[in-house]
């Protein structure tokens, strides 16, 4: 990959394997890092301003965000186990 691929990378026009290859190039190329920063600034400056919302942004620490991903399947599994152990005798018939 080379510096010439920066625009295609930023525009999402590179396939996944080439994206990864370009990122490996990017981390060692100050010119592409500066170019990416410029593309980002130009793009974000072009986007319209959102309406100011009353609520502040909800900042969730990274560890807690990761914990949610881990906890959700565990809770689902625990709920399924409880239902299984209670067995069909505890369930009320809906018919």
């Amino acid at each position, binding site marked *: 990959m080379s510096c010439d691929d920066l625009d295609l990378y930023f525009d999402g026009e590179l396939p996944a394997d080439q994206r*990864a290859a370009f990122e490996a190039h990017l981390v060692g190329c100050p010119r592409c890092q500066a170019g990416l920063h410029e593309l980002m600034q130009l793009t974000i400056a072009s986007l319209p301003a959102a309406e100011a919302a009353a609520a502040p*942004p909800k*900042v969730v620490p990274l560890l807690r965000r990761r914990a949610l991903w881990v906890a959700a399947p565990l809770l689902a599994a625990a709920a399924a186990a409880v239902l299984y152990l209670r067995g069909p005798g505890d369930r009320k018939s809906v018919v």
Partner: protein
Amino acid sequence: MAPPPVTDPSMDAEAEFHRCLREHELALRTLALRLCRSSADAGDLVQDTFERALRRRAQYEPGTNLRAWLCTLLHHLFLDRCRARSRGPTHAPLDELVVPAPEPASEPVWAALTRDDVVAAVGRLDPEFRSVYQLHTLDGMPYTEIAARLGIPKATVGTRLARARRKLRDLLMPARAADESHP
């Protein structure tokens, strides 16, 4: 008569800073999605950007372009992630893997730009470049869709987009353009 409620000015300032961050959340998310190509990763990147902004709030110069400052923070965080990924899996703790990015300092030219400046510059583009730039940047269309919409080859979309950006840089940063033309 009850005394007026006592308000902490620093709390007011913090609430105002939170409100200002919120104004740019959608734009940052759009940008992060372009970089990450995954909604979950983009959400994490924006959250990390807000965390860093709150920690380094003292470095932000009031009155300058907050969006540009946040964009610089996001840029550094994204490069940190690329560095960590390029090293591949390892058993070392994550904290040891991520090399802290240099202190973010938004380029003065971006810090001083307003959206009106950009809108005016986009308006000065030739129509064939302006339409490609708007379809891609504002509507998020990929090259193939723009090509189909405008009836032009896909390669031409990339060429026009690159030329539109170059022209915008020249319009928005004339001093730098002059430097580049007279090295």
